[in-house]
């Protein structure tokens, strides 16, 4: 993100008024590699391909805030790899990991990984370090410390079903796991900030919290995410949860989130009401069915609905309701921008 783009994001989370609402998109390996015309595994495996692809997207969309921006990541394998999960890299699919635990008893023996040396984390840091000069030559900087959230990471270590069942049947073990993973996440985001002085934001990706009811959310999600955001002193504290998000939205302020990327299944005005005035919203065009598979007309209709449902001049980053998927073409992104800006002006 350039200095000017970052300034825009700061103004957004500070609640300032915009004549035209800013447009921001959450972009990572699947879309960037598709847009650049390279296999996803090339994108992960080659730092040359990675930097070329990221340069190509920021040059193609200079007026869009692309978050996290030059994101060093290996998909869902990034964080679980540090715990020792086996990473799988299908040529035509997203990376994933095998779960680590066969039973809850194994949680007892888990030790906190070292985020500087373990798994793919040192490769994330190196990728950004090696790319810094090329990024800065075109005016971009590393702005975000990024991480998957503790429940998401824990669900990969233990298995999704096992984690959710464990909250009911083995709550003490699950808390132990979440505490350890949270400690690791705190180390990881602090490490990124320590390595890159330009980091002034944190992005936590946590869809699994969307599977929890109110009581479980308060017990298993809120305190851990709040601990992470309290551990890093940055002005932009962003949460992504594009699963069910109504409970999340209600708790954003107490978790100290000030930018929320949420599902297209919730009307923006509903999230706005639940989140309150201190949280900027990032959303929420349906990513797959409209941005990825839809037409420009469908994008236009969706964006028009969003900007007409809330005040488009304050606290709104027009975006997708989740990550930008493959299939999202230049003309659809341009339509998204034009519609947002024209509608706000009219």
């Amino acid at each position, binding site marked *: 993100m350039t200095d000017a783009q970052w300034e825009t994001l700061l103004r957004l989370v500070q609640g300032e008024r915009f004549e035209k609402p800013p447009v921001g998109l959450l972009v990572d390996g699947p879309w960037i590699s598709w847009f650049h015309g390279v296999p996803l*595994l*090339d994108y*992960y*495996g*080659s*730092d*040359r*391909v990675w930097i070329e692809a990221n340069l190509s997207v920021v040059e193609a969309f200079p007026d869009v805030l692309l978050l996290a921006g030059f994101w060093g990541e290996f998909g869902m394998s990034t964080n679980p*790899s*540090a*715990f*020792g*999960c*086996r*990473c*799988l*890299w*299908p*040529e035509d699919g997203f990376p994933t990991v*095998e779960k680590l635990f066969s039973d809850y008893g194994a949680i007892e023996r888990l030790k906190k*990984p*070292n985020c500087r*040396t*373990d*798994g793919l984390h*040192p*490769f994330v840091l*190196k*990728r950004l370090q*090696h790319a810094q000069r090329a990024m800065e030559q075109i005016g971009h900087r590393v702005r975000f410390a990024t991480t998957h959230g503790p429940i998401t990471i824990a669900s990969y270590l233990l298995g999704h079903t096992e984690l959710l069942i464990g909250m009911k049947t083995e709550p003490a073990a699950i808390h132990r796991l979440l505490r350890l993973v949270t400690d690791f996440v705190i180390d990881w985001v602090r490490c990124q900030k320590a390595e890159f002085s330009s980091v002034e934001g944190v992005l936590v990706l946590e869809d699994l919290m969307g599977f929890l009811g109110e009581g479980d959310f308060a017990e298993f999600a809120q305190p851990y995410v709040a601990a992470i955001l309290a551990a890093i002193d940055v002005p932009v504290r962003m949460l992504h949860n594009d699963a069910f998000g109504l409970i999340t939205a209600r708790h954003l302020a107490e978790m100290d989130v000030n930018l929320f990327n949420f599902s297209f299944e919730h009307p923006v005005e509903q999230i706005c009401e639940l989140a309150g005035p201190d949280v900027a919203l990032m959303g929420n065009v349906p990513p797959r069915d409209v941005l990825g598979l839809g037409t420009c007309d469908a994008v236009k209709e969706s964006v028009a609905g969003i900007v007409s449902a809330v005040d488009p001049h304050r606290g709104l980053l027009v975006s997708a309701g989740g990550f930008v998927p493959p299939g999202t073409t230049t003309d659809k992104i341009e339509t998204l921008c034009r519609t947002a800006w024209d509608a706000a002006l009219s």
Partner: protein
Amino acid sequence: MTDPQWDALLRVFDGELLDPAPIGFIIDSPWLPNWAGMSILDYYSSERLWLDANLKAIEQFPDVCFLPGFWSEFGMCTEPASFGAKCTFPENEFPFAAPILKDFDAVAGMTKPNCRVDGLAPFVVKRLQCCRKDIEAAGHRIRFAVSRGPLNIASFLAGHTEMLMAVKTEPEAALKLIDLVTDFVIDWLGYQKECFDSIDGILVLDDLIGFLGEPDFRQFALPFFQRIAEAMDVRVKALHNDARGLVTAKCLPEMGFNLFNFAFEHSLSEIRDLAGEEMVLLGNLPPRDVLAAGSPDDVRRETRAMVDSIADKRRVLFSCGGGMPPHVSTENIAAFCEIVRG
């Protein structure tokens, strides 16, 4: 390796006496990154830095055959990662793969990894694919499929002590583990050959076999290396074992390998006697104490003694007794080459 270097290597296999005498060094991450001015983690994590370091080596020493040449690897993590070993990458130390087996009962539950998808293996292949054009533009080709050997990999999965103990206490489980790892190694070497049509050699690295006495070697090593060698239809079948190598040397023809890189503690003549006239020997200056820690004069003196130690220089590639160790200077390699090439 360039086409002329590869042709020269094949002529060595044919028993031709080359003039000047051929020189070969196994080079990888313990030596290359620091020699090229970067950390080990920089070398692993950046395709560009990896390529730069390898190009620098071939440009600096155009008369040396570097084996395997443009070796894409992540140290000892390369193969164990496919089995799910947790990998640790310090900035400038060797990476480490933690054991995955808490006991040998767990071997029964293991399944063979998919070398196309699992762990770091896809990244090894991607690096070569992404750099192939640059490698070939420099006149070189990817010649070798490379893998750690089955005992070496198994010892990382189970723990070194545990693996060697199991040879005596749980031989069935140990054999099952080695068998499964061998299947993986065969897949892995075959996949590399499938990806790069220029591959006409294999390099298998297994020091752990040097820890076995002859009966154990014949039961726990020999049949598995035979399977690997038989599975690969290539002209060069290189084995590296720079631990104790006398049993290995005696069994090399049976194993199906035709090039041996061995410890400096065994003389060229001793290994020649054991391995036979047909075996190509790659050795064997002391890597750490002379090539790395010695002065250029030390290297000249010891290299001269090494060259003079064997009368028949056919099927010998002069090298060090192991891979190039850390901290070997350009001057010391030049001193080595000066003596060997005369």
